[in-house]
């Protein structure tokens, strides 16, 4: 995975910064610059998520692409942030402890690495809250 295009969203990835439409109150993560409900009448501002949420569903990845192979097995989940939006993230916990409904909070961690360039990617993971 080439790195170039990922630095653009580093603040968002590192700090869980998304957006919010002040017209309708919806929260977006990953950040969106366009509110599908309000369209041209929407008004989008940045929003720092509190970083707590609940596991909607999860899996334990045992076969990964080259750049994540070093981390297997790892827990991957869809998490609903308390503000509403959902995202996909890893949970730092033993596979057997992961469960649907688990309360989690964000932490800053290494996400993966580019095998070819050796560059390490950082971002938000979650741990039990």
């Amino acid at each position, binding site marked *: 995975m080439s790195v170039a295009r990922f630095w653009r969203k580093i603040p968002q990835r590192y700090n869980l910064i998304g957006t919010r439409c002040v017209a309708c109150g919806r929260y977006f993560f990953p950040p969106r610059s366009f509110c599908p409900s309000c369209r041209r009448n929407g008004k989008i501002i940045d929003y720092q998520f509190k970083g707590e949420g609940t596991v*909607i569903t*999860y*899996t334990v990845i045992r076969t990964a*692409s080259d750049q994540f192979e070093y981390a297997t097995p790892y827990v991957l989940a869809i998490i609903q942030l308390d503000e509403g939006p959902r995202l*996909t993230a*890893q949970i730092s916990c033993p596979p057997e402890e992961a469960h*649907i409904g688990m309360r989690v909070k964000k932490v800053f961690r290494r*996400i993966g690495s580019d095998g070819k360039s050796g560059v390490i990617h950082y*971002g938000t993971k979650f741990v039990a809250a």
Partner: protein
Amino acid sequence: MKDVAVIGVGCTTFGEKWNHSFRDLFIEAGALALEDANLSGEQIDALFVGNMSAGRFIEQEHIGALIADYAGLATKHIPSTRVEAACASGGLAFRQAITAVASGMSTIVVAAGVEKMTDITPGQTVDTLASAADREWEGFMGATFPGLYAMIAHDYMHRYPLTREQLAQVAVKNHFNGARNPIAQFQQEISIETVLSSSLVADPLRLFDCSPITDGAAAVILAPLEIAKQFTDTPIKVLASAQASDTIALHDRRDISTLDATVEAGKRAFHQAGLTHRDIDLVEVHDCFTIGEICAIEDLGFCTKGEAGQLTEDGVTALHGDLPVNTSGGLKACGHPVGATGIKQIYEVVLQLRGEAGKRQIEAERGMTHNVGGTGATVVIHILGAC
């Protein structure tokens, strides 16, 4: 709009075809389809090609033109267009071909699908397949394609009655059918134990819940229904073509376990054809993973949410059940060369409607195909009927 018919079909065998190049594959499928329709290449007006990722699998883009050229059609300068929607690329190529014929813009049109997946390493393949989902906000976080479907499975099993054995039965059934299909990648029946003892890929999905890495190509030829009998005694009529989209990322869906794009496209297809579920005699659904088939049967409306596991256990979807699903063996046993799958589904339904499906022949007058891109961001559905 004109009525459209399929007048010829062709398909390579599916598998890890080390000795065949991308070019070999589509030439073989195209030649078989032409022969089936009793055509020389001369009459072809236009070509639509479904392919997911030749750019990454074989470092070649512009394969519409490449295929027209190697099929010997360069001197005719026919329009040739590649369409892509990940694993739904084949179904979309078929749909574009229908539109071209229905509009009167073209007359004899080939819709082909092809994927050559075994020229890169397994790790690179995992990576390339993940590009069907949201690369920046799923793949970047470590999501693999099986991992995303595994999260659907977990959500589903948490909310609905589906046993691990019922899920395995989907694979068992599809291998049973594949064992009766000469083009299938896997020709052997398996047991529930085979599935349950295979290695975990992404919990709760095991290796035998997943479709394989496959090389293959398929091609079908379309013409206006009014002239179809000139080419074949058994034209198959296109009764509906419907396509729908949804969020690219699974986490943004209204409901993790329901593919709304399947629900929408399904409704549109039934409406277009003026048919109900009882009118459909077989369905080829997109079982890239066993859970995919469970969701598809429900989201298409053949039963209510949560019932498909029991239906499968009861044999309703088996080869000679009330609603045969994936008589070809599906993606699971027949194989899944991503761009070719949507066309292979059409190929299977056409064979069944013509009565040419050999050992897996069922009685059928109308069949449906259901082709999914990514985890459900694109769905394309077709209904075909014997004339």
